[in-house]
């Protein structure tokens, strides 16, 4: 086999294998759920404990639901993951962030909101789930 062909072959392998593994990694059932409760169920969230140790910074009113900046910080020790859900979106689960090796349980991102709704944050700590919500009034649908 020519060295070039061999290298091309290797590249194809590298390109193909991870994608399949990645498709399996993405939580399709949770992200395609149209009800908040179903999304939570597919994230294996059982009992949710309300917590004031979760900070959510988002505007009280958003002119355009296509871009709503959200800042989330968990002050709960040993936070492993932060999920962001929008109760009244067509598919409520927006994102799930998992932290390790010194990453702080903190994210800022921009999300779409279809209408006025609570932004709900669920924090995973071991087998426990803590939750906090912030309402955002949306003036223009951002889900298209």
């Amino acid at each position: 086999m020519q060295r070039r062909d061999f290298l091309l072959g290797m590249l194809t392998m590298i390109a193909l294998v991870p994608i399949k593994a990645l498709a399996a990694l993405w939580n399709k059932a949770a992200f395609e759920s149209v009800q908040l409760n179903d999304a939570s169920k597919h994230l294996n969230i059982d009992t949710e404990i309300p917590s004031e140790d979760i900070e959510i910074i988002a505007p009280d009113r958003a002119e355009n639901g296509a871009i709503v900046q959200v800042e989330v910080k968990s002050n709960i020790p040993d936070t492993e993951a932060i999920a962001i859900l929008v109760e009244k979106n067509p598919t409520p689960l927006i994102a799930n962030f998992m932290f390790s090796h010194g990453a702080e349980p903190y994210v800022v991102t921009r999300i779409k909101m279809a209408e006025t709704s609570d932004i709900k944050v669920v924090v995973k700590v071991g087998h426990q789930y803590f939750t906090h919500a912030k309402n955002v009034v949306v003036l223009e649908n951002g889900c298209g």
Partner: protein
Amino acid sequence: MAKLGADNMKMRAQLKGDFVEVKVLMSHPMETGRRKDDFNQLIPAHFVQLLAATLNGKTVLEAQWGTGISKNPYLTFRLKGAKVGDVIEVTWHDNLGASAVQEIVVTEA
């Protein structure tokens, strides 16, 4: 399987006291699959599903995203224990098999 160019992400990583703040701006349409074009045809869903960040090769952040992240995704995250000169790499993969990877070196704020 498109591998996008090195200019797909704008990144910044700055040491701010006892943590490094990383800011990432990605270039991606983030189509929900519910929007229609000018001819009333549905535009197929096209969105980033997985994002991972490493610090000197070690995974620090893994995210799964749905269609609810805004177009041209923006992300800030913070790393404790990182220092000036450390290398942070961010990779994303979307639902159509495209991906992009980019790295940045931590600087003083």
